[in-house]
């Protein structure tokens, strides 16, 4: 419009109208252009509005979908690989079982469904069932792992909104035989202990998440354990625990050349098919989860340290004429000889005083450094998720060195001690223990030299000497050239060492000249019996049990029996000279 036209229009209006126009639209405004711009704004507004809606749609689509189908898939127990022993015997496997679920949204008559289902499954709680079916959820479990017959009966009822999912149920055909070792799974087939838990941590859980591990996994997991050895061990330990009325008994066999755990038993144990038992705190795995003062067994470490450092030879003598007074403490010997003792005598008489003096000859720092090198001061990690931290004195003075020299004042997991002794036996290589199969080549890559081969020879000589003349005589099974060391430690009860509550152990190497296996037997609080003439020390219980175990497992382990071997000073030490 031209100015004249504008003026013409305005001139035709009353002053009141002109005022209203001005108030409404403003002065000298091109209303056509303004309105065009505002339609443009409306376009922008709609564009933004639709973009927000599209964004929300994409957000919902990309949201981690927790809808029924997936939830069901998650809930279904997914497959796990079989676990087999070193000879391929099945230790754990999956069996398919049907589980009953409900889709509450699809159920027409909840009352009818509850009535019919409880008729077939009388152990189902009707109130809870009704509650579950009345919820607004898309998916609820009603009963896990029902029998074929129950499944058929429920199927025949034809209730809409209930169905079956085939689940994998974990079965342990050997029951409690390998319980602590392989652990167990929960109702959703997720590993909650032992090797089963380790498997999940190793990516199996991720596979489950991705929905890949739905069917049987074809590759079984090979463990180092030998089911036959495990059985013999467990059998003897149960008998021993019964005989000596002990709280617990535990045993371990390790291949010293590879670090493989051939057997690990801790009784009382549990049946992994019955998970309730596993929660009982008295059934813990004492070999990895418990920490103990290992007693005289630890003397082997002290001797090896001193011999290896050259501070003593086998011919050296140490003063054991009197008890060792240290501050207000006095260290006694159990089999006090009250004379100067040579190193082999210290070991066979298990002299606390002699061992303490040997450790003092080394000094606190070197003692500490040696034990650290032997892996005794830090938590030992294996495939088993259950592991305990050693209890190490916070301030380590000379008194600590004195007591730790003969195995008091430092608590370690028994498996840890076995690893350390194993290194003294096998030629001086510390090999981390494993529950998986391992070849000698693989072990060699992991091994760390901790003592000289000559020191190892001397230690084996001392171990063998113990069986020939010392406390381990009852375990000297003919043909296997057994070497061993006993340990009797008094348990701390109420802050004091108890004279009656003992933790006995026996460590044996077989054969002592060419070491293959290390055996540990532990008996927790054995009681004296008439047969043991009122004694409860290790030589009267742990050692004979060890002997029985060796007699049974020796043939299984394929150790060639050799008879008429010369005594250890000629067979073992002769090589070193």
């Amino acid at each position, binding site marked *: 419009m031209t100015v004249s036209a504008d003026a013409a229009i305005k001139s035709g209006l009353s002053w009141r*109208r002109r005022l209203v126009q001005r108030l409404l639209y403003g002065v000298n405004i091109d209303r056509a252009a*303004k*309105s065009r711009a505002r339609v443009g704004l409306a376009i922008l507004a709609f*564009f933004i509005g639709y973009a927000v809606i599209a964004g929300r749609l994409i957000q*919902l689509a990309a949201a981690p979908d927790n809808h029924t189908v997936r939830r069901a898939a998650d809930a279904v127990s997914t497959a796990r690989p079989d676990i087999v022993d070193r000879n391929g015997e099945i230790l754990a496997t999956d069996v398919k079982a049907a589980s009953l679920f409900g889709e509450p949204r699809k159920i027409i008559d909840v009352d009818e469904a509850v009535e019919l289902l409880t008729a077939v499954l009388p152990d189902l709680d009707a109130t809870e069932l009704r509650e579950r079916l009345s919820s607004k959820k898309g998916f609820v479990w009603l009963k896990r792992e029902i029998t074929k017959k129950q499944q058929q009966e429920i199927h025949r009822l034809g209730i809409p909104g209930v169905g079956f999912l085939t689940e994998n149920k974990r079965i342990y055909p050997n029951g409690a035989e390998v319980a602590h070792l392989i652990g167990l799974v929960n109702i959703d087939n997720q590993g909650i202990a032992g090797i089963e838990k380790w498997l999940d941590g190793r990516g199996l859980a991720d596979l489950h998440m991705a929905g890949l591990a739905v069917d049987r996994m074809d590759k079984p997991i090979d463990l180092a354990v030998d089911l036959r050895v495990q059985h013999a061990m467990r059998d003897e330990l149960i008998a021993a625990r019964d005989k000596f009325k002990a709280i617990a008994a535990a045993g371990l066999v390790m291949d010293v050349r590879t670090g493989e755990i051939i057997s690990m038993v801790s009784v009382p144990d549990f049946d992994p098919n019955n998970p309730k038992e596993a929660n009982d705190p008295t059934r813990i795995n004492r070999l990895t989860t418990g920490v103990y003062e290992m007693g005289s067994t630890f003397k082997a470490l002290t001797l090896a340290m001193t011999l290896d450092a050259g501070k003593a030879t086998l011919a050296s003598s140490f003063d054991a004429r009197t008890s060792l007074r240290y501050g207000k403490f006095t260290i006694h010997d159990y089999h006090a000889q009250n004379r100067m003792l040579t190193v082999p005598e210290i070991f066979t008489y298990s002299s606390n005083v002699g061992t303490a003096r040997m450790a003092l000859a080394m000094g606190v720092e070197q003692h500490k450094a040696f034990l650290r090198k032997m892996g005794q001061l830090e938590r030992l990690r294996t495939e088993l998720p259950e592991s305990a931290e050693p209890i190490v004195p916070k301030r380590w003075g000379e008194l600590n060195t004195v007591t730790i020299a003969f195995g008091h004042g430092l608590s370690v997991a028994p498996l840890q001690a076995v690893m350390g002794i194993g290194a003294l036996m096998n030629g001086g290589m510390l090999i981390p223990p494993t529950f998986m199969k391992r070849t000698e080549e693989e072990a060699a890559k992991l091994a760390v030299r901790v003592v000289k081969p000559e020191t190892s020879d001397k230690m084996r000589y001392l171990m063998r000497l113990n069986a020939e003349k010392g406390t381990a005589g009852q375990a000297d099974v003919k043909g296997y050239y057994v070497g061993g060391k006993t340990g009797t430690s008094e348990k701390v009860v109420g802050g004091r060492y108890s004279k009656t509550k003992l933790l006995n152990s026996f460590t044996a190497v077989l054969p002592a000249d060419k070491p293959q296996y290390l055996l540990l037997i532990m008996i927790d609080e054995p009681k004296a019996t008439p047969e043991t003439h009122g004694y409860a020390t290790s030589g009267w219980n742990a050692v004979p049990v060890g002997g029985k175990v060796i007699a049974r497992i020796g043939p299984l382990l394929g150790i060639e029996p050799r008879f008429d071997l010369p005594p250890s000073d000629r067979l073992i030490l002769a090589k070193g000279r």
Partner: protein
Amino acid sequence: MVSRATRTPFGEWWWTVDKLLLGALATLMLAGIVLSLAASPPVAARLHLEPFYFVNRHVWFLLPAIVIMLATSFLTPHQIRRLALVMFTLSVAMVIYTILFGAEIKGARRWMTFAGMTIQPSEFLKPSFVILISWLFAESARRPEMPANSLALGILLFVVTLLVLQPDFGQTMLILLVWGALFFMAGMRLVWIGGLCAVSLVGLTGAYYTMPHVAQRIQRFMDPSSGDSFQITTSVSSFLRGGWFGLGPGEGTVKRILPDSHTDFVFAVAGEEFGVVLCLMLLLLFAFVVIRSLRNAMQNEDPFTRFAAAGLAILFGLQSAINMSVNLHLMPAKGMTLPFISYGGSSMLSLAYAMGMLLALTRERPRAEMLASYVNVAPAGARA
């Protein structure tokens, strides 16, 4: 097939109508049938009707709707104004009738029975209202001596009063929003726009405190745990279940427990069975119709055509956006149909009428013709 050489009314229509817009609307109608097949059988089953009762009726309503849309799209702006006046008068009369004599359903008198059919007259009120208001705002620019603005405000107040009496909060909101948009586009000063916003805020607050069900719905939106938000949680869960590609036709289960799955919550059913990808395509169609029409309106020289086309597009756009937002829990629950997708006879016919007018208004017209019409009605003094 259609000759440009001879001028037939159809030929003229064919060469001037916005074919892309027509195509988008036809696609929406088709999608409506497909989604009706998915969404309505469970509702029919719940009401003990034969499964395809609502599908059949949806298709039966679609036929007259198509006829109405095409017929309306032949009209000239002049005819559209006249028809709108008639439609407005008729529907106002019918709304008054429903308020006085209508049967009360779910606490509101919105429906009347005519020749065996249930009609919701307020649906027909909306498009004709938009045309009348656009006309008035356009006239106010051209003939300032007419009290066009006052008249527009008067009509608004009148219609809002009627709708509140029904009561029909959703339609009231829609009418207010469209009126506000037209007012804004007419080029009013921002002061007045602000004033309008303030008034509607006051109105909304008033509604919040005086109408308990409005307050409830808003509270539930803010905090779903405060009351029964079953519809919304179910609706959102159906999108989650559907994911990108949906569970497949007929595989949806949420639709069975979702009330109004065939009307207000069709979009959720689409999400569950056909997935978010299809929902996005539907969204694109709506956005295309709205934004293309608005762009068309922006480029138009004639104020009436611009306002009317923009108003109809905004009406259509608001309705679709509000419905989708409610389905996606972006807005408090509000009964509003998804244009051409939801089931509902009155809504369908009214939309066909509105979209027919939109098609008619966005037809390409020679500038001369437009100016001629302008000259015809303009007073002699305005000639330049």
